[in-house]
């Protein structure tokens, strides 16, 4: 290499590398090597600090851009899980919370995503349980829901629980902070398969919340949940 091309060029190699590191100009292995070198040498650490603090004077040149909606909610869901299994989304469903608490007892909704195989070995159910919620008084209503992406259908099985006279259970899905969307009335004494409309399929993915409420016979007449939540869970892919 000629002197012209020599990156050393008679300058302090360590200082030059620190400056390049501070600007983020180094890539891959060299970046890691220089990071270790700086960590090991107090003089270089001081130089890095000088660069970082001085360069921060340029921060004002970056224009603010409003962050897209929904990120804070996703962060809170991720960082502050409300209870084991229930997930932080429970907290964002304030209107549901106010409705909950009336009568039907221990309820568990387990939601699994069945992306490839519509058939599920009952032995595997335990590992597919991704969410469980219990209310105060116990009378055991449990659901397992499996979503099959290939057919766009949700298969719902009540593992335990009894129908309540003159009332119906209604299934809802909730995507992020959007209002709950009804998936219809579901029986507790038999398996149910619900084929989702296209717009719902587009929304189904990991993290979507399914919930069951206790409604008047025939389901909520308004399209908005009116009865208490008896089961809720968020979906995890398997």
């Amino acid at each position, binding site marked *: 290499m000629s002197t012209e091309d020599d990156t050393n060029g008679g*300058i302090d190699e360590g200082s030059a590398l620190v400056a*390049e590191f501070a600007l983020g100009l180094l890539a891959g292995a060299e970046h890691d090597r220089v990071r270790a070198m700086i960590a090991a040498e107090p003089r270089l650490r001081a130089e890095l600090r000088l660069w970082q603090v*001085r360069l*921060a004077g340029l*921060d004002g*040149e*970056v224009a*603010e*851009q409003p962050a*897209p909606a929904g990120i804070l909610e996703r962060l809170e869901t991720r960082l502050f899980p409300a209870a084991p299994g229930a997930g932080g989304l429970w907290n964002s469903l304030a209107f549901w919370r106010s409705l909950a608490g009336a009568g039907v007892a221990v309820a568990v909704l387990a939601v699994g995503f069945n992306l490839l195989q519509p058939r599920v070995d009952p032995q595997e159910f335990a590992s597919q349980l991704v969410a469980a919620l219990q209310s105060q008084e116990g009378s055991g209503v449990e659901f397992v829901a499996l979503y099959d992406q290939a057919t766009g259908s949700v298969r719902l099985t009540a593992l335990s629980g009894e129908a309540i006279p003159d009332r119906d259970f209604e299934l809802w899905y909730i995507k992020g902070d959007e209002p709950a969307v009804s998936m219809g009335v579901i029986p507790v004494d038999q398996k149910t398969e619900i084929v989702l409309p296209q717009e719902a399929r587009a929304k189904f993915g990991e993290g979507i919340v399914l919930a069951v409420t206790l409604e008047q016979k025939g389901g909520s007449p308004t399209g908005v949940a009116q009865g208490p939540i008896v089961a809720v869970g968020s979906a995890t892919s398997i």
Partner: protein
Amino acid sequence: MQSAASEIASLISRVALRDRAAFRDLYTRTSAKLFGVCLRILRDRAEAEEALQEVYVKVWQRADRYAQGGFSPISWLVAVARNHCLDVLRARRPAGDDLDLALDIADAGPDPEQAAVASGERAQIDGCLDQLEADKADAVRGAYLDGFSYEELATRYSVPLNTMRTWLRRSLIRLKDCLSA
């Protein structure tokens, strides 16, 4: 204006104590700035959005390290965002760059609060950059603000990679002497 900075510093301290309401406030007050940083460096909205989430996860996890910094509070947050985005770029680079994808972000001026807080530091770095040749000062700004690599800078200035590195290094040493003064 100083009080705006100290309010953010106090929010960061409360976040270090796991105060969720403080985290929410901090996000509300600073996310536009950090999203601006991510968008400018990553030049892709979806990636910037994902990066912004990761940045605030780091802020939540590392808020206790802020006190050791010596940064202004907003500069510390910007540094967390910038470092994360540069890591994303480094991971992306082997697949090749496409400079044409650069997103033109309207350069609204800095918000007055930020400008006042940083005016001292800003005057110094601007003054020292002014002592470099204009294209070299631009290259330093491009590396810091846009996350440009040596390859990207060499393309922009139509010089061989080695030449780019040699002349930028010399400029950086001169810049450091000025900034240390």
